[in-house]
């Protein structure tokens, strides 16, 4: 920091001794250039979560979608099938209620509800606190079901290894074009409720093309959690991620 320019006045007394009075001038404005991410605190906590999960050999999966795209239904079936082979745990975020935690609770799966009391997304601190409430002993996959929202969760890293974005056939083919940041940030995009595609007149090819245009690097899966169609490819993707692929 540059020092302020002081005003110096000299006085001489009767004996000829010189006194100097220094009055500091107004502090000059100075600038500091830096590069601090605005979400620095969340990013640091997310990095700490990621290190912690990796150290414990846990694959953290952040599931994001609009409300009602089928995150909970996908997890229910996943826990009943994949979860029998591989020990899983779930953190589930909602504004209020523990309805989803109740739906997901199973004897072989530790589940904790995070109630955000109105907040529209999970952040890394909530996930760290939520994980403390879970018995993660022997757990290989931690599913984090985010608050249903396609906007804010895009900006908040939770410390996950994989971000999965869901799009259901009931939402229309153009959702990826309307909410591009979240789709762009996805490692895997899952088209859900494919059993409804026909009655809805859903154009699957157009939807897949829209996903590809926004998220060219993402793996795309199509599933129906109700009929089980396509679930095997989802489990294979999880298995590959567990194996480090």
């Amino acid at each position, binding site marked *: *920091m540059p020092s302020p320019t002081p005003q110096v006045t000299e006085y001489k007394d009767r004996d000829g001794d010189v006194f100097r009075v220094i009055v500091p001038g*107004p*502090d*000059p*404005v*100075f*600038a*500091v*250039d*830096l*590069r*601090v*991410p*605005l*979400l*620095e*605190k969340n990013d640091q906590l997310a990095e700490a979560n990621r290190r912690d999960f990796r150290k414990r050999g846990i694959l953290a999966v952040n599931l994001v979608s609009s409300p009602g795209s089928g995150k909970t239904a996908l997890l229910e079936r996943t826990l009943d099938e994949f979860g029998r082979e591989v020990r899983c745990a779930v953190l589930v975020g909602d504004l209020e209620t523990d309805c989803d935690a109740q739906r997901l609770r199973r004897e072989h799966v530790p589940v904790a509800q995070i109630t955000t009391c109105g907040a529209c997304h999970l952040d890394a601190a909530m996930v760290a606190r939520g994980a403390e409430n879970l018995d993660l002993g022997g757990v290989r996959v931690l599913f984090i079901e985010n608050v249903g929202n396609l*906007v*804010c969760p*895009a*900006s908040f890293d939770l410390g996950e290894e994989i971000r999965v974005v869901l799009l259901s056939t009931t939402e229309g083919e153009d959702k990826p*074009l309307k909410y*591009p*940041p979240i789709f*762009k940030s996805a490692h895997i995009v899952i088209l859900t409720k494919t059993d409804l595609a026909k009655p809805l007149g859903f154009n699957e090819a157009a939807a897949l093309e829209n996903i*590809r*245009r*926004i*998220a*060219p*690097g993402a793996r795309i899966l199509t599933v129906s959690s109700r009929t089980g169609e396509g679930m095997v490819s989802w489990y294979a993707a999880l298995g590959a991620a567990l194996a480090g692929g």
Partner: protein
Amino acid sequence: MAAVLRTAGENRASRVHRIVLRVGSLSGAEPDALRFAFDIVARGTPADGAVLDIDEVPARAVCPDCALEFDADAAFITECPRCRRICGDLRQGRELELSRIEMS
């Protein structure tokens, strides 16, 4: 805001006059919303009344095939204008950072 006040403290500044942010067009942050929020969080702090300037960073991507660098602001689709390849290689545009503080 914590970073602004921390930096001011580290530099023994008592007043923050101007803050510059770099905001990428694909960052998901709205400059107007940031300004609105800033005025509220700055109240009663050394940054009260500071000017908030926002440098908007356009999204740019690089084609992995032909190495052409191009604007990627159009609806988030990173399609190379030369070879039509859609790639995900964003060079800039996701920034959301504090880049300069002027204080005294």
